[in-house]
């Protein structure tokens, strides 16, 4: 694997780890299950810290996604070389970015969305996250690649 490919893979792994951790930190579970009581992990129970970290990781994920997309296009790799799991992961990440961006908009002042809209958005984002985690675990164990 070339150096840029390795950097990209490590970058993706770090971003995925941070965005998932901070995303789960949006739910009051780290405090309840005393994970935030573990020395060094207290910040996981601080909602504003995990909120900002989640936004920062989302910025990195969006930048990485756009970089990979245009890198593929400009180098003539094309979507046809994507594996089945690669297609699924691309779709899920796209869904996560879109639903995440809508949630960012929801958090702006003066945005009044209904319970139903917010709940659908929350559940969609959470379900896509779980799907990505399971698929990533599968591809990691089965050594499936993004492209053929």
């Amino acid at each position, binding site marked *: 694997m070339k150096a840029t490919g390795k950097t990209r893979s490590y970058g993706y792994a770090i971003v995925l780890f941070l965005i998932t951790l901070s995303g789960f930190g949006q739910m009051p579970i780290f405090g309840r*299950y005393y994970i935030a009581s573990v020395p060094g992990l207290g910040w996981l129970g601080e909602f504003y810290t995990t909120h*900002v970290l989640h936004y920062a990781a989302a910025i990195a994920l969006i930048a990485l996604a756009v970089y990979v997309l245009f*890198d593929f296009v400009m180098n003539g790799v094309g979507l046809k070389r994507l594996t089945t799991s690669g297609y699924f992961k691309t779709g899920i990440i796209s869904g996560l970015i879109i639903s995440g961006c809508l949630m960012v908009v929801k958090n702006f002042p003066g945005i009044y969305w209904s319970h139903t809209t*917010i709940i659908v958005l929350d559940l969609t984002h959470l379900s896509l996250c779980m799907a990505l985690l399971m698929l990533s675990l599968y591809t990691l164990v089965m050594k499936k690649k993004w492209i053929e």
Partner: protein
Amino acid sequence: MSLKISRRTFIKGSIAAAGTVVAGTGISGPDFAAAGPLSDEKQEPLSTLLDIRKCIGCEECVHACREVNAAKYPEPRKPFPKMYPKTVPVQDWSEKRDVTDRLTPYNWIFIQHASVTHNGEKMELTIPRRCMHCDNPPCVKLCPWGAAKQEKNGLSRIDADLCLGGSKCKNVCPWSIPERQTGVGLYLDLLPALAGNGVMYKCDRCYNRLEKDELPACIEACPENVQSIGPRSEILEQAHSLAKEINGYVYGEHENGGTNTIYVSPVPFDQLNAAIEKGKGKPHLAYTKNMMADGTNLSRAMLIAPLAGLAAAFGKFYLKSKEDK
């Protein structure tokens, strides 16, 4: 319950309210600030103005709130389900419903007392305290499940049918306003042992009364007309005018980036904050920064992220093309 509130109902209520406001005579009790039509899509949020010089601490607002909102109060199912880990706190106010000297799931407004000396004059002030109904409420925006909601008229409220009682809203509220009752709500039907812990309760500014062209109970019941309600810009104008007139101070305009509860006091609020009893269920009166500001600022950077990704891809392509030559 909230899901049944249609936009039509909301607008209908607003139109009715607007009519009353404009007429200025249809509402008994305190002054309704002069206002534009509330049904207007561009209508700004409603704010309340509390002139704390007028408050005599009679608790009429407290009792009116309890009476009007009694049907919304929790009736927990006992014994409470076992929760894991066992150290998860059970919060039960159902046996202490009579408590009125702090915020509880059964008491959404209370009176704070302050003995202060200002400009050589000794004063005893009483201050009605409840949810501030922030402009950009963290309780609503950061609820992980969408159980809290902000309405266009500026009030924020928690839907008791949807809340799981995780208490995040209380944690992120700069005044720690919402209070939890264990043993009630949706979590009982899901995984009561492992997730959720009841329902969070706080002032909903009598949203159902506002829909029917009625004033919030605390405003209507006050014999001293401590509170008035109207469009935010007009309430702020009144607040500043009153503060100028009495050489007083304003609280709630800039706190947490702005709220829809504006206090006017003859005494500086840092002095009042030092004098009031603070703690669990007893919110402070200190300045608080805009808690949502970091997220809002970062979201601007999110707009630059695609450009950064694009620039990196172009950069790589350019270098590769140069190498190929």
